[in-house]
């Protein structure tokens, strides 16, 4: 799995080096979409044959929603702290 970070870093450097070759970047972008389509199709396949997942989809969906709500509340509250921190120097001027 750590190889993921390595491939990602190589990709960013490669993209930066090629940033003025807009055709290559555009090709990479459409290739990205098709890779995502392929991988999500495969993920769908393994979900489709896995009765466990479909049987528990209610519980999984509920937990996913709870996690999403917690993520939103946590990030919005944290951004409030930053807003207060960033606004203070402006107020003092």
């Amino acid at each position, binding site marked *: 799995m750590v190889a993921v970070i390595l491939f990602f870093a190589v990709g960013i450097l490669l993209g930066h080096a*090629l940033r003025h070759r807009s055709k290559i970047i555009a090709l*990479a972008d459409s290739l*990205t979409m098709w890779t995502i389509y392929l991988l999500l199709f495969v993920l769908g*396949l393994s979900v489709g044959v896995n009765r466990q997942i479909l049987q528990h989809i209610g519980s999984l969906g509920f937990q996913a929603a709870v996690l999403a709500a917690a993520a939103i509340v946590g*990030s919005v509250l944290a*951004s409030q702290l*930053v807003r207060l921190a960033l606004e203070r120097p402006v107020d003092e001027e």
Partner: protein
Amino acid sequence: MKNSLIVLGWFGAGILVGRLSLLPEIPTLSNAALYVVYLLVLLVGVGIGGDAKSWQALKATNIKIVLIPLSIIVGTLAGVGLVSFLLPTIGLRDSLAVGAGFGYYSLSSVLISQARGETLGVVALLSNLIREIATLLLAPLLVSLFGKLAPIACGGATAMDSTLPVIIKSAGKEYAMVSLFSGIVISIAVPILITLILTA
């Protein structure tokens, strides 16, 4: 949004084909697909590195603005970490990994399926999709309740692309650069944090 629907269409088609057992042998995300996952993160990297807008946004910002994506990352992980103790079947580490998708549901679900299996992959897909949709729907409300950084926080990684239009519409054009910057930093954090959380 159109893109999200196409992505979901492929996922749904996969479920259907799998359910109806239309294929003699079902490929799974565990073996050959690993190399496709490597290819995907490489390509996502090329897309971010090659995006002229990204570098402009990174250059145009002062150091204080880094606090915004940083706080969104910390706040998200704190939120999902705390709530994980209330969940029946998803533990702390898995909750952190799902949260570390920051709305980037395609990449996070694929990475998490690869590392932890399809069940958590589906949770990552749903949870991060909900985060994106919630941002699209709630952006104006969030601005009026919590100010103009709130929809950017809610959007997470998606603040650079899919939710950027609603963020600009509700928070104003002057927040476009902040939103772009925050979304880029968080998008870069997604594969790194998911990998670290699931392997550390």
